[in-house]
Structure formats: C-alpha cells, structure tokens
C-alpha cells in the first residue's frame, strides 16, 4: 500500500477544498495562504435546516500537526455553539464524542471531519438552546494562527 506523505495529502485536500464541495454546506482552506507546511486551516459550516443551527454560519479552525493524517487534526469552533462533544468554554471538539470520528483512521479527511460535525448538528440530541448568533469564543482560547513555527523558509 502506497503511503501518501502528509504534505502531498494536504495538498490534495487543499485542491478539493479550492474546488468546493458539491454538497455546499461547508468550505475550507488554509488560514494563511503562505503557510507552506499547511498547519492551520479554517473552515465554515452552514447549520442544517430544521435544527437550532439553521441559517447560522459556524467558523471552525483545524490544526494539522506533523503527524497528520496518522493523528487527527485538532478541531475547534471559533463561533460559539452548544453541541455535545464541544467544550463550552473553549470551543474545542472532542473527536471521540463525534460519530464517525471516534476511531480516527488516516484515510479520514478535513472534509469528513466537517461532514461529521454537520451530521452531529442534525441529530436529535443536539436540539439545544444556542448562544447568540455571531458570538465567538474568547480569542485567548483560539489556536494560534500564523505562528512562526517550523515553517521552512529555506
């Protein structure tokens, strides 16, 4: 079995994201278009119809470390949301609490993470009172974007 290296895998995912998904409820791309090592991603999910999330746009950040896709991305809601599996204080997503993501496989993608979150929003157990629209988690709890990190400048 040919193993696609992290960077080429993420380049493929970026191309998919740039093309846009046909389902239209989510979009994603790099948080910083100069991030050669593609650590920080930003995504948005449109809340499903006939749910408390309907007509709301949720911004999500994903951090793909050097071990992606062997390890899952770190996922965090920027927009406040009341959803099982999401930390109410920080927006961090516990992937183990999200159906389809609880046992991470390296074949899973950023798009699949977003799709699973969308599905989670559609579930009966997620019919919960929601924070005010457009409210966001305190910036201190956001993952650092544009961090200088080990970005190769060579």
């Amino acid at each position, binding site marked *: 079995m040919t*193993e*696609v*290296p992290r*960077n080429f895998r993420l380049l493929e995912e970026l191309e998919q994201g740039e093309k846009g998904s046909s389902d239209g409820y989510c979009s994603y791309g790099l948080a910083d278009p100069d991030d*050669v090592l593609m650590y920080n991603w930003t995504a948005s999910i449109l809340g499903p119809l006939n749910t408390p999330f309907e007509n709301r746009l949720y911004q999500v950040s994903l951090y793909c470390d050097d071990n992606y896709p062997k390890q899952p991305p770190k996922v965090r809601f920027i927009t406040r949301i009341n959803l099982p599996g999401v930390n109410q204080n920080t927006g961090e997503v516990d992937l183990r609490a999200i159906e389809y993501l609880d046992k991470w496989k390296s074949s899973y993608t950023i798009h699949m993470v977003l799709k699973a979150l969308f599905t989670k929003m559609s579930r009966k157990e997620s019919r919960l009172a929601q924070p005010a629209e457009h409210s966001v988690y305190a910036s201190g709890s956001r993952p650092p974007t544009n961090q200088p990190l080990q970005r*190769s400048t*060579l």
Partner: protein
Amino acid sequence: MAGAPKRILKEIERLNRDPVPGIEVSSVENNIRYFNVIMGGPSQSPYQGKGAGGRFKLELFLPEDYPMSPPKVRFLTKMYHPNIDRLGRICLDILKDKWSPALQIRTVLLSIQALLSAPNPDDPLANDVADQWKTNEKLAIQTATEWTQKYAVDAWTAKPAV
C-alpha cells in the same frame, strides 16, 4: 524494499550511481516513493545566488500509479517565479498533460531546473508575479534575486531561530 516496483528501484539506483549535476536527491525514511531534493539555482539566472549559490529545497512523491501518472513535486523554499505559487506548486506541462511514462525523476528535475532559467509569465501560476514579470521585468528579476539570496543562500547559514 518490498512492494516497490522495479522501475522505481532502478531509477533510485541510477540517481545514486550517476547523480544529476547540481541536484541532490535523498530518500525520506520509511517511504521509498518520497524524496527530499536540493536543487542548485542555474547560473545566469536570478536563482543563481551569490556566495555559496542558491540551493532550493523540494519534495517529490511518486504516486501509486507512477509511472502511468507523473511524480508530484513542489518547492519548499519560498520562490519568486511566475510558474511557482506561494505553496511551491509548479506549473509545468510535463507534470500534467504532457507527462509520459518515458520521463523519469531525473528528467523532471532537470525540467524544473530549466524552468528556473526560463520563467514563462504567459502561463502563470502566480498571477501577481507574472504581471510584475511582464510589466517590469527588471524589477521582477531583482526581486527574484533578493528572495534567492534571503531564502536559498543566507537561510542555510543563518542560525536556527530559538
């Protein structure tokens, strides 16, 4: 290594025995299809660099159906070039529709090196750079020269940031 087609093993063997001048290719651990490349900037080009000369990092991957489909390759070093984008992706016909299984890692790398000598702003990937190249070539070449010095010459000797 088990599972790697003979064709790939042959290419690696030849790259080791008879290296391409100015291009170093090394395997990345645990993946026989994945390579780090260091490419010297061609002389008489903005990528030549002063002193030790421009040395550009690339990564190259041979996908499952190689050689029926082309290698995937991109620059890791920041480049100012109309056919190379901000993520180092390269616009080159042989990496796309002009690929032929008769080509090899060696020929691909030589073609990329040739692209550094002959930027083609009429088939751009980085539109802003291509525009600069067409409207003020002198300034574009100056910028490419400066980037080369900063990212492909000086960066090799700079102390790593703590």
